[in-house]
């Protein structure tokens, strides 16, 4: 027998469901996005957009259990877009408040943590995602693959390359 699937109500109930999801998961997703983007205001923007995207597509979502997976993928996509925009806008001054928030937060961390985070931000997006999902969220390769929308093999190689690059960068940093 087929297991029952929750059919999600449309219209105004979408707002209630998405609000409940926001209350339950937004903070964790902002934390994930902070690791990807490096600053909290941008991370909050990305997460807001992900939830609004879910809200807009609520009627098309037929399984409530998939909402969190959808949100996580949206956040990762949003963070990639941020990096693409930043790359295109190199040379344009960003909002100084973003940097101030980020600098203040990182000033509270020890030197060793700051080095790791700086190295993490220098990784290509896919490697950074794989490393963060595997070692910050402790996801399995299969779970990380689902969140990133790639195969397990891709996660495995991206993680391996990411860790190797991190080790190299941190070794260089230590040698200075």
């Amino acid at each position, binding site marked *: 027998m087929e297991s029952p699937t929750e059919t999600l109500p449309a219209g105004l109930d979408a*707002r209630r469901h998405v609000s409940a999801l926001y209350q339950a998961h937004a*903070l964790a997703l902002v934390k994930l996005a902070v690791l990807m983007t490096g600053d909290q205001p941008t991370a909050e923007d990305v997460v*807001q957009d992900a939830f609004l995207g879910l809200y807009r597509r609520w009627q098309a979502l037929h399984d409530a259990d998939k909402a969190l997976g959808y949100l996580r993928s949206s956040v990762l996509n949003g963070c990639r877009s941020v990096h693409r925009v930043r790359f295109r806008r190199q040379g344009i001054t960003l909002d100084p*408040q973003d940097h101030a928030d980020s600098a203040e937060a990182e000033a509270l961390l020890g030197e060793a943590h*700051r080095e790791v*985070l700086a190295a993490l931000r220098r990784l290509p997006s896919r490697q950074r995602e794989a490393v963060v999902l595997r070692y910050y969220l402790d996801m399995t390769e299969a779970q990380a693959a689902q969140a990133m929308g790639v195969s397990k093999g891709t996660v495995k190689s991206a993680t391996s390359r990411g*860790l190797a690059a991190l080790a190299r960068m941190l070794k260089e940093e230590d040698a200075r």
Partner: protein
Amino acid sequence: MSIEDRVRAATRARTTLVRDIRPLEFPDELPARVRRARRWLTWGAPIGAAALVTALALILVMLRQADDPQPGSVTPASGASAIGSIPRYYVALAQTDSTGSQLKAVVGDDRTGRTVAVLNPSLSQNFYGVTGAADDRTFVVMNYTGTTKQTTWYLLRLTPGAARPTQLTKLPIKPVVAHVAGLALSPDGRELAVMWRTATTQTNAVTYLAVYSMSSGAVLHTWITKGDNINAIGGGANGEALSWVDGDRSVDFGWVVFSGGAHPSSTNTVRRIDVTAPGSDLLADSRVAMRLPRTVMPTKTTFSRPCGREVTASDGTVVCGTTSFSDVSFQEVCSTVPPAFVTYSGTTGKRLKVLYTYHGQCLEAQATPVWTDPAGSHVIAFLLLSEKGVKTSATDKFGLIADGHFTPLPKLVVGDGDAIDQGGLAF
């Protein structure tokens, strides 16, 4: 330590610094599915354009052939034209659901009744105050975080019609751990006045008035007064009705003066402080702009408080709303002490003009001005009436007061009266 462990430690250390996030900002309506709209667009757009051109041509022909338009369709009613003089957008606090104690912020349009956006607090947050600038687009929403007991402020900018009509940004103002009694954004949106009170016992309260720069979050000026029992925790109306006057040079605030002795009494005043002048003593550096009139008893059982609630216009005129009540159950009071909105001079304290008087019956009435134009002549008001024959609920009426008339604002959708009392409605 392995590289994996270093990543774990660093990422977890960084994310522990993320404690508060801003609330979710919903757009007004659930939009149609984008993909389907795009498919329609490819062949629908040319057909639509052709239909539009045909319709326009038909309308032009009909207009040329038509008789003179009917008078009623051309001249708007006086109430309608007056409604055009008030801000279109407002932010109101409302309960997140029927059982919850959290307040969300609803951005509304009083012309159409449309909800522009809803800002939902996260689990540990709660909104408890809102204020607006004169441009009808800039607001500040005050937020309390239960886990840290801190009050913080968010800038809310409206861009009606945009895909994302609201932008919420945390202001770089240092949070306070205190009871915030008053909040007022200057009409030009550059400065934020906040009055708050700290107290650990009933007698050691300290009241602060601070003016912050909206752009940098820096404190531009602070005034302090140390209280005794007159500043008891949660007591009095000190700091209520905080508002900017005199071209953003001064700030008015409500202040209760208690007199002790054998027959202790209190006097409600409006004090005015020049924010451009030096000084740091809240009471010594401010002056009484107006003593609010005391409660009167036209009969042995009916009472009228002429200035139960007040709001100050930016020219200094004080707009008061009366509270009418009786100490006898189910006694008709409005025929004896009708609720009214009256203006007073903020310079001399003299009564200037009765803006509107309610001529109807009620058991109890509370007239609350919630917004006024710079001259105190157009007022958005809230009339709370307890009426005869209505067993449980009261009738809440929002309206615009102008030229002696009360024009209902049915499209101003504000739910909870308590939220308004707590500064939960701003235009």
